């Protein structure tokens, strides 16, 4: 105790300066929590890293170019490093944290439980991303498109009144205006490019495929980010017995604010 004699304090391994035994509990709580926070962040970061490397690596083989641009990767990196460190590093201790056994002095992570989550969740991310690669083409408006398509081709004719007008695969304009036109087929709800002049058809097809590829990359980015944002919630609980990741969810407002910022910023970035 801090009120003890100086000789005792000099020989003691631990001195409680506050003269309260409850300080020991608090010290143990915060000490263990510090270790847990490191584990939380490591689990999150390793999962994102492994998932991202696998996604990019496989994506290059499928699309003949990286499925995410430099700006997308910068945003992922910001969330993965800075935001996650603030969100997961500020988790306050839960009261029951003192009940467990002390960890081994040399333990780096919670050993196999954390490794299991890292490997398992990374594999799950990979499966989802592969499905997105192959299924997002249908949602892009073209149906099937060449994975070698060039995203940088600009629309050959942007004036909707022109007979050479080349519509993007996802109609971002009022299609009813085209119902009287030759190209739009209301029964199939799509544009019939064969009605374009012959010399414009190939050009328009290339543009639409490039546009569709760009849309697929947006889906890939969006899905990846949502997977990681929910993974951040997963990483709040890293102990073997912790199954409820929403336990004491509202006792760390920093985490909630960071998560909200990420969701809003994601919406703004994509739109």
């Amino acid at each position: 105790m801090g009120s003890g004699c100086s000789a005792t304090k000099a020989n003691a391994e631990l001195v409680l300066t506050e003269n309260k035994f409850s300080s020991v509990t608090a010290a143990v709580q915060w000490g263990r929590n510090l270790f847990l926070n490191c584990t939380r962040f490591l689990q999150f970061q390793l999962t994102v890293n492994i998932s991202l490397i696998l996604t990019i690596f496989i994506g290059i083989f499928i699309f003949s170019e990286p499925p995410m641009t430099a700006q997308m990767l910068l945003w992922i990196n910001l969330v993965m490093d800075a935001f996650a460190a603030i969100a997961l590093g500020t988790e306050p201790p839960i009261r029951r944290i003192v009940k467990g056994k002390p960890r081994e002095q040399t333990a780096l992570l919670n050993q196999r439980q954390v490794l299991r989550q890292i490997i398992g969740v990374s594999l799950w991310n990979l499966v989802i991303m592969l499905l997105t690669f192959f299924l997002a083409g249908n949602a892009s408006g073209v149906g099937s498109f060449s994975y070698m398509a060039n995203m940088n081709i600009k629309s050959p004719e942007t004036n909707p009144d022109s007979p050479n007008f080349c519509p993007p695969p996802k109609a971002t304009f009022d299609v009813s205006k085209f119902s009287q036109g030759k190209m739009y087929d209301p029964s199939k709800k799509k544009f019939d490019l064969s009605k374009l002049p012959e010399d414009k058809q190939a050009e328009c097809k290339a543009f639409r495929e490039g546009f569709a590829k760009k849309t697929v990359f947006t889906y890939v980015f969006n899905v990846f980010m949502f997977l990681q944002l929910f993974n951040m919630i997963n990483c709040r609980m890293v102990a073997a017995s912790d199954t409820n990741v929403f336990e004491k969810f509202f006792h760390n407002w920093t985490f909630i604010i960071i998560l909200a910022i990420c969701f809003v910023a994601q919406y703004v970035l994509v739109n």
Partner: protein
Amino acid sequence: MISRSEWGACLFIGLTELLAAFLLKFVPSKWLEFLPDISDFEDTAHQDPVTDLYDQATSIKVTDFGADKEKPTEEGEGEVEMTGDDNNYQQDKTEQ
């Protein structure tokens, strides 16, 4: 631009992460025995051959610096005679 329903789809796909992580928690610990136990990582780190070599190199003490320094001859000035294969540095050292 992504439509509202597509945003919903992306959000729903993201939510599956929670389910996957939840199910992973129920994987029996017996199934995890193939994973490496990294709890004693700090104890075994020094057994790495690279760090061993570094430790040996940094533990060499130079005591009589400059005492045996010979004047360079005209021929081969500044050249250092190699007395062994670099790859056998470890072996040479132990033989000494």
